[in-house]
């Protein structure tokens, strides 16, 4: 039986798609058969971040409406053999997604995959609700910023009341906190919420902290999931988070400000 994992946040622009792409790639690199589904119908972007935008023929809505078979819509990644992508539709609206349709897709994918990652759209409308409905686990992506933390709290409430597990009164969805765009220097200056503060407020287990990093934009420019950039701090932080997700113990890195010498302070030097 596959594990269904939703990547969600409530707020937009916090790094759901970046994290979905990185996580799916990371799990596949560890040999797990992984598929990542874009639930953002009408505003698909996972294809671009994964670098497969030119290979999209059919999408999730085509499969639900019976215009294409699931196998025809799945795009197999050329870099990591065990990774597949199911793109969202760019032309239809969100009403094209139905609970029964999504259930059928997840059941069929469950036979062939170990992990089904659902990249949720922002908001708490239909697309977001369907993305989290079948989840066994949730990765809640949060920026160290008030509106993002508030929306994460809201989405946690939705997970606890409106997911299939909640409705059937089964064991609740396992929640993981992933803090992204974290800047230890600004935390030290008192300009950014501390990691402990976010953990205290949301009170769910911390899966990882992804530092603010220029490599994330570079990765999206080229359509390479940032986890494949092993040189970058963000890529390494995602790799650590994937290890923790699979049960390994890993200390959190990149959460303390690097002590800069006078040379670096005078001449700058930015995070890789």
């Amino acid at each position: 039986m596959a594990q269904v994992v939703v990547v969600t946040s409530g707020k937009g622009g916090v790094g759901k798609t970046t994290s979905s792409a990185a996580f799916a790639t990371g799990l596949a690199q560890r040999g797990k058969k992984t598929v990542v589904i874009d639930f953002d119908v009408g505003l698909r972007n996972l294809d671009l971040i994964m670098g497969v935008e030119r290979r999209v023929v059919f999408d999730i809505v085509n499969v639900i409406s019976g215009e294409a078979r699931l196998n025809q819509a799945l795009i197999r990644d050329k870099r990591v053999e065990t990774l597949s992508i199911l793109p969202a539709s760019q032309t239809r609206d969100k009403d094209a997604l139905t609970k029964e349709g999504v259930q059928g897709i997840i059941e069929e994918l469950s036979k062939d995959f170990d992990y089904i990652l659902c990249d949720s759209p922002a908001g708490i409308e239909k697309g977001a609700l369907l993305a989290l409905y079948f989840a066994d686990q949730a990765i809640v992506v949060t920026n160290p910023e008030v509106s993002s933390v508030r929306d994460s709290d809201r989405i946690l409430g939705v997970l606890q009341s409106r997911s299939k597990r909640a409705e059937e009164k089964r064991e609740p969805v396992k929640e993981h906190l992933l803090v992204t765009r974290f800047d230890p220097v600004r935390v030290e200056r008192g300009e950014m919420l501390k990691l402990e503060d976010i953990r205290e407020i949301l009170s769910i287990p911390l899966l990882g902290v992804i530092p603010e990093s220029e490599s994330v934009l570079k990765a999206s420019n080229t359509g390479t999931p940032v986890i494949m950039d092993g040189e970058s701090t963000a890529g390494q932080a995602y790799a650590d988070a994937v290890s923790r997700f699979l049960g390994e113990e890993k200390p959190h890195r990149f959460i303390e400000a690097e002590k800069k010498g006078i040379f670096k302070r005078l001449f700058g030097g930015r995070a890789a």
Partner: protein
Amino acid sequence: MSWLDFFRGQRKPDSSASAAKERLQIVLAHERIGRNREDFLPKLQQELVAVVARYVAIDPGKVNVNLDRGGDMSTLAIEIELPAPAAMRMAAGAR
């Protein structure tokens, strides 16, 4: 920040992050309670206006409901503008 701080590599702590934490704690404490309950304020306002209107001729547009959510205590302030005695007499005379 004095120019010396540049060489010491220290800056005065800015309190905006602690303000963020405090504001979040207060707003979320209230939102978590209200999560499974509908917003009662519009209905409260309607019913209050109906009760007051039974005794005094009031303009329903001149009713203000203000809520201030605090950490330890919240206040609900309802302000109903009563018409001047002259206007009330005129309204009574017109009937």
